[in-house]
């Protein structure tokens, strides 16, 4: 098991040997690809610029496990979202990634939106989703009693779920590493010297040179920049910001489904959704920017969200806000993913994974490995992946602080350190000792929820920091 964060890179596992495949970018997509590659007896590296997996777009999204009912029929995205959604739901059950199949309601607030619902139902049909059903105003009110006045009806999409966006890439990375993949963090790739026939590519990183026969670009927002390193200029990534508000757990009772807006001429609109952590999410905005690091929130964005949230669920505005965040989608001007294999270059670009990458990740992994095989990579026989069981961050599933048997075996699970999120000393200790340990307090938060609750550290911040510093010394 190899995870490196500093020092010179190992030049392939054996002396003089290059990696068979290197995946650049350890977001949810890159981690899924690395995990899929780990099924074969290949030497695989996963290389990431930042200090942790899932630090890019993958940590800041809306956390919906989509069915793909509203994708563009016939597109690659439609197929991979549909496949990926099923794969991830099954994988989550197997590994303990929290998923709650709460279902979605596309709520119509005016006649025009109401008139659009049958069209959306027909689109869902074309995408293979036969479970949608119209809901009248009266039934809607019993399904969602706190909905604001004026809702005329809805389309129910029963299979839409909410998922934990932090555990997902972490589970993939953990499984990949345990199955033999080398994960190199804090290792931005700055240049690529493409290899000719029979010679490996040379990736120039801040930590030295890494040689690899095949190369996968899973650089998210920077997929265009990475393409440029190998001389490809097929598309441009425009960051599309989404700002979100997380409301307190005490608001969770206000909403039972994912409340989706009906897409219209004025854009996609914001949704209100439960989170697997027991909070309520409001967002995201959609703003096209030119700065790929602009993950800040703005006063205008937050005001607009509150105005829209107040119409959907008026009582939400009386509840406390726990956190504000923003993520960037990798928009490319196309209504589909930008996935391209360049067999001559032994190179695959997995780009433009805009707003559905979490859902599609496992299918993207499979698809990419297929493209690599088509490009000449010999996969050899499959072998089983190392098993993983992820710690549960989901409120709908047993958490350690409520598990009497576990506390009896190990009292550290009875010692709550972060009270708002009920995170125990045992869980923090486990995270620090895990296969892919956190590099920062934020990384620890994404693994345990510590410091992520309503007090944001007022009560526990100092204690959690001390545990983190002792544990990473």
């Amino acid at each position: 098991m190899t995870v490196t964060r500093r020092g010179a890179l190992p030049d392939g596992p054996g002396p003089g040997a290059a990696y068979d495949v290197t995946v650049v970018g350890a977001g949810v997509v890159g981690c899924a690809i690395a995990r899929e590659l780990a099924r074969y007896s290949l030497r695989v590296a996963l290389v990431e610029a930042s200090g942790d997996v899932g630090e890019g777009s993958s940590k800041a999204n809306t956390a919906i496990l989509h069915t793909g009912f509203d994708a563009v029929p016939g597109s690659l995205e439609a197929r991979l979202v549909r496949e990926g959604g099923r794969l991830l739901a099954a994988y989550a059950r197997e590994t303990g990634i929290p998923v709650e199949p709460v279902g979605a309601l596309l709520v119509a607030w005016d006649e025009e939106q109401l008139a659009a619902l049958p069209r959306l139902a027909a689109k869902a049909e074309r995408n293979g989703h036969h479970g949608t059903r119209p809901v009248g105003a009266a039934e809607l009110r019993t399904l969602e009693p706190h909905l604001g006045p004026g809702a005329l009806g809805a389309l129910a999409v029963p299979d839409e779920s909410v998922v934990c966006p932090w555990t997902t890439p972490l589970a993939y990375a953990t499984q990949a590493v345990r199955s033999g993949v080398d994960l190199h963090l804090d290792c931005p790739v700055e240049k690529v010297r493409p290899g000719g026939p029979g010679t490996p590519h040379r990736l120039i990183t801040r930590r030295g040179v890494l040689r690899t026969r095949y190369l996968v670009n899973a650089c998210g927002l920077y997929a265009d920049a990475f393409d440029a390193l190998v001389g490809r200029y097929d598309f441009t990534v425009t960051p599309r910001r989404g700002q979100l508000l997380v409301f307190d757990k005490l608001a969770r009772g206000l909403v039972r489904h994912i409340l989706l807006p009906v897409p219209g001429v004025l854009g996609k609109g914001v949704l209100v959704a439960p989170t697997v952590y027991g909070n309520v999410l409001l967002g995201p905005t959609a703003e096209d920017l030119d700065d790929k690091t602009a993950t800040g929130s703005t006063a205008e964005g937050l005001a607009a969200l509150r105005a829209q949230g107040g119409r959907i669920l008026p009582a939400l505005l009386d509840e406390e806000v726990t956190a504000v965040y923003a993520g960037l989608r990798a928009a490319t001007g196309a209504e589909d993913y930008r996935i391209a294999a360049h067999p001559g270059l032994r190179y695959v670009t997995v780009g433009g994974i805009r707003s559905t990458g979490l859902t599609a990740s496992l299918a993207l992994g499979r698809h990419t490995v297929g493209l690599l095989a088509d490009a000449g990579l010999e996969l050899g026989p499959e072998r089983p992946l190392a098993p993983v069981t992820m710690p549960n961050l989901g409120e709908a599933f047993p958490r350690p602080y409520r598990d009497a048997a576990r506390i009896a075996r190990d009292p550290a699970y009875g010692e709550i350190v972060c009270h708002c999120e009920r995170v125990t000393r045992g869980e923090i200790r486990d995270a620090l000792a895990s296969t892919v340990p956190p590099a920062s307090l934020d990384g620890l938060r994404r693994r345990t929820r510590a410091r992520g609750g309503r007090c944001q550290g007022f009560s526990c911040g100092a204690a959690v920091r001390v545990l983190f510093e002792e544990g990473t010394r």
Partner: protein
Amino acid sequence: MERAVDVLIVGAGPAGLAAAARLAAAGAGRVEVLERERTAGGVPRHCARGGFGAFTGPGYARRAVRAAVRAGAVVRTGAGATGWAGPLTLEVTAPTGLERITARAVVLATGARERPRGARLVPGSRPAGVFGTGELQQSVELFGLRRERIGRRAVVVGSEPVARHAARTLRRAGVTVAAVVADRPRGPRLPGPVLRGATVVELVGRGRLSGVVVRGADGRTGLLRCDTVVFTGDWIPEHELARTGGVPLDRATLGPAVDPAFRTPVPGVFAVGNLLRGVEPAVVAAAEGRAVAAAVLARLAGAPWPGPGVPVAPEGALRWASPNRLTGPAPAVLLRPADRLVRPLLTVTQDDRILYEARLPGLVEPHRSLRPPTGWTADVDPAGGPVVIRLDGTGARPTPAPARSRPH
């Protein structure tokens, strides 16, 4: 494990400990205090040099714990109440295991916290270096965190006395306080460069905070360079347990609605201290802890639980009133002004009947509660409408409320 006690007190801060000491001394039977932290004492544990009469905060906390234990109360640390398993049964997690503790009376004394940056909707990036006073004080006073770990140049946000405590704590740790950004144009004495009437409108910095954008009283904005920012004050009661237990909250205080004897509308459940309305000095919380004892003893002796009583409605320049319902004479009523006013007029009416009227001497300020005489509470008609308590300013220009778009 299932257990029964006579009185279960949640929270071993000044309020809970004072209640425990008084009740145990009065022979209330088994009086147990649950504290989720490793050490009892509540917030004063980390107020190294706060004004706690003759004591430092930690000294005050130790004394309060000793007094409760000496009186015969059981003070358990590392035991967090996480929910309810019945009307008077709490679920508890501790290293020794899970418990369900049923009490004949439950006293909630869970304190208050500061609203963090996110809850204040301060936009910008999400860098490291953002603290609240609670975390800052604990880092420095309980864990000995030194300057290198906190930062070099800090900005303190807030205009309540706690901003002063935060600035002091920073200085003691060797951190330069670049400015205190106080949203109110006037207020308590604050140390060092103070920007009055100013607000922080954005945080800037990748990874680590590099500055805060401040909008001044004149409406102009500028960047203040700093690597640490401390958001102080803006209190909210720690009301999770109360709410999940079905205890109705008061819309103005966001704490449990209580009567003058600290009874909530849920029979057998009492609430005291900062849980009721955010932060008051520790002596106030401790006094409420002592005062609740009489009603708890009455409850144990079988006294009936009073009905909802008459609601108290704060109006005019009042932010809140506590207690929020009257079921009989009140020994004290705390009132919190929303504005700074000179010699304001206080009127108490019920159904157009004036129960009390007085011009308050001097200055009232939003960081300090008022405690007017309460003789009038005996004249409240228990079958009448809400008691309206109103504060009206004269003379001084009212100051705008702090810039927060909260509905309550």
